[in-house]
């Protein structure tokens, strides 16, 4: 397993937020964690990223215990978190610089991916000059360049408008075809979850726990009209029922 959590439980101020979360993520797999807002998704995210410690349970990456240790997964949020005072290329190259590469080499290394990520021409612009969709692309490239074999994405596209969002989904699936990143994708968007993932965990209840696991058995790359097929709707119905049952 690339990533595995075992029995993660966490409380804040005496209120249990998540309980006994055990999930797995295989090599090259894209797994969605689907749940309503405020259901403990971000708590779990921070624990997996090593930014906070669980009350009990473990986080394993490549079978190594990394509970409470940051720096083992690549990380991306809904907010693009591009530093406003760095040019796009320098922002994207940041993880390389943090690892000790000098600025010039890091920049050159990052620029090699600009075309593949559809970012050509934005190298010397500041983030404020880019559209929301472009900023998320840059953020994803930065996440990728962090170079960890597991990526953790917390609602990365949920701040985008519907049209930009469906464009970026298509782009995302394309890019993922080429870079094979093992990804845990956290979202509250059912359509997004079905469209992108190989497997979906449903997180619900209070405290939040895993109530269901659904395999999306549709080969990738998925066609643009996949979201309009009866198959897609069947999955959607199944998920809606699963979320209501809990």
């Amino acid at each position, binding site marked *: 397993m690339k990533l595995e959590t075992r029995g993660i439980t966490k409380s804040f101020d005496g209120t249990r937020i998540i309980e006994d979360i055990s999930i797995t993520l295989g090599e090259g797999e894209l797994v969605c964690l689907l749940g309503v807002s405020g259901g403990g998704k971000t708590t779990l995210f*921070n624990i997996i*990223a*090593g*930014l906070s410690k669980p009350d009990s349970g473990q986080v394993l990456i490549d079978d190594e215990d990394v509970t409470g240790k*940051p*720096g083992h*997964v*690549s*990380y991306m*949020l809904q*907010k693009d*978190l591009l*530093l*406003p*005072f*760095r040019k796009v290329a320098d922002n994207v190259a*940041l*993880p390389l*610089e*943090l*690892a000790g590469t000098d600025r010039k080499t890091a920049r050159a290394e990052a620029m090699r991916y600009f075309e593949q990520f559809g970012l050509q021409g934005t190298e010397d*612009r*500041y983030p*404020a*000059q*880019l*559209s929301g969709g472009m900023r998320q692309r840059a953020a994803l490239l930065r996440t990728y360049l*962090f170079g960890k074999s597991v990526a953790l994405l917390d609602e990365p596209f949920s701040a985008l408008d519907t049209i930009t969002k469906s464009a970026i989904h298509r782009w995302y699936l394309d890019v993922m075809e080429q870079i094979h990143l093992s990804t845990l994708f956290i979202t509250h968007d059912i359509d997004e979850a079905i469209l992108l993932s190989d497997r979906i965990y449903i997180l619900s209840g209070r405290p939040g726990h895993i109530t269901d696991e659904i395999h999306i058995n549709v080969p990738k790359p998925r066609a643009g009209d996949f979201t309009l097929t009866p198959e897609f709707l069947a999955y959607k119905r199944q998920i809606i029922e699963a979320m209501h049952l809990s």
Partner: protein
Amino acid sequence: MTRRHPSITSKLAPAVLIAVLLAVWQLCSDLGVVPKFMLPSPTDVVTAFVEDFPALMTHARVSLSEAFLGLGTAVILSFVVAFLMDQFRVVREAVYPLLILTQTVPTVAIAPLLVLWLGYGILPKVVLIVITCFFPMTIGLLSGFASADPDFIHMMRAMGASNWQIFRYVKLPSSAEQFFSGLRISASYSVVGAVISEWLGGFEGLGVYMMRVKKSYAFDKMFAVIFLISVISLILIKAVDLLKKKSMPWNLIHSGEH
């Protein structure tokens, strides 16, 4: 085209007001409303300024070097203190009240003490300027460091960044805006600080010159010095603004343009 109008009127209105005030001042002086030896007319001040120009420049050079030395020291010192306060909670909690407390002590009041302790040379002047400028610089930097978005810091930590890297890549650049507001205030404080400390004793400088012309009741020269001091302050403030523009190129970008 329509956008140009407000900027013209916004410059025109104060210019007209200044011209009117100057004219009233000139008239009061010419018509003898106020005795000439007490309030010299604007033309007298200009004449004094031109006649005394070489002397003014010599003294200005002295005051300016004190101001720069003091300001430079204050900037370096404030960086060190603000950095330590940012990195170590204990330092922050210990130093912060002290910092506020020192601000309640009027610098003008301790200036005579500094002269007694440190003599009539350049040292008491520089020390006074450092004391005056240190506070706005440190507070500016501290709140600048604290203004860094905590999500940036989380992200950096998740990418395995060290405390120093978080400081260098996130907190330091985030403080640029506040640093320059602090520097702007401090730059004008430094000139005023130099002049005030020179009043209390010294051999050269605009403050010394001011005391000298005051004793000889040369009010026109007095006004010429005051005029010079405000010009110097204005130039310094403009220089800081220019430096800010140069060092923060991302600030010139409006988010609407892409």
